């Protein structure tokens, strides 16, 4: 069962993502409320997939993505954010994000993205 780390400053979003992913059969092994905590949790937990928000206090998700990819180049990170402008999408994908989901989202889209991203094929 793929393990997932959820990173979002909003309690509501962490709760929603945890329920969606748990219902879809994934194991949520940790949560982080900003990018800095996410980098630490990633080092501790080494999850299969990271669901990463962008707009967060302390350290934003794009900076955290770059830190994580510097540590583990094949880390699987999916951005999940309200920001849909091309510059943000391109920055995330160039920095190594596996997928980019724009809020509000349909639950099945989250499960499908994690399933696809964690697939070894």
């Amino acid at each position, binding site marked *: 069962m793929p393990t997932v780390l959820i990173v979002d*400053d*909003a*309690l*509501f*979003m962490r*709760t*929603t993502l945890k329920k969606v992913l748990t219902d879809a059969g994934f194991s949520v092994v940790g949560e982080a409320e900003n990018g800095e905590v996410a980098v630490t949790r990633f080092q501790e937990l080494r999850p299969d997939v990271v669901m990463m928000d962008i*707009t*967060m*206090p302390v350290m934003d998700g794009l900076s955290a993505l770059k830190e994580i990819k510097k540590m583990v180049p094949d880390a699987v990170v999916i951005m999940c*954010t*309200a*920001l*849909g*402008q*091309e*510059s943000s999408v391109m920055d995330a994908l160039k920095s190594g994000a596996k997928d980019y989901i*724009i*809020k*509000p989202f349909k639950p099945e889209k989250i499960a499908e993205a994690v399933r696809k991203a964690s697939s070894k094929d």
Partner: protein
Amino acid sequence: MRAEFINPFVTAGIAVLESIMASRPDSGQLAVRSATFTTQQVSIVIGVTGAVEGQAVYGMSLVTATKIAAAMSSIPAMTFDELASSAVAELGNMISGHAATLLSQAGVETMITPPALIRGANVEISTATPALVVPLYTDFGKIEINVALKEAPAKLTQAAAPIVSGSAA
């Protein structure tokens, strides 16, 4: 403030609320509000930085906020607790993020700050410029979209945080 800056926020508000409520809100009359105004019972404040800077403030009654949080969380009998506050703040984040995308498509690059939620009526908010206001009428009640943006001077793209004063009810 240029009037066209509020249009992406209204379009985004209608789209995001429609996806949450499964019914389309109606927009009301555009109005101008002074740079200092008082809040409704629940207000979400989001900073905007980049080519334009300032704030977007989404105001609503506690009843409306609670109904929206319940719809977002799929919890029918919800009280306005920490989870509900977070849900309503996330609503402001989603509307502002969508608006930033629409602004970008019009050639205006911006970023948004994490949302701050103010609970309590008659709290005074001061923004850098007078705000344009458009009410959205939803099945859950009225939501006011206040947008106070000005074009950023070159090399000066950091939005000032709004000054909030007064006592929360």
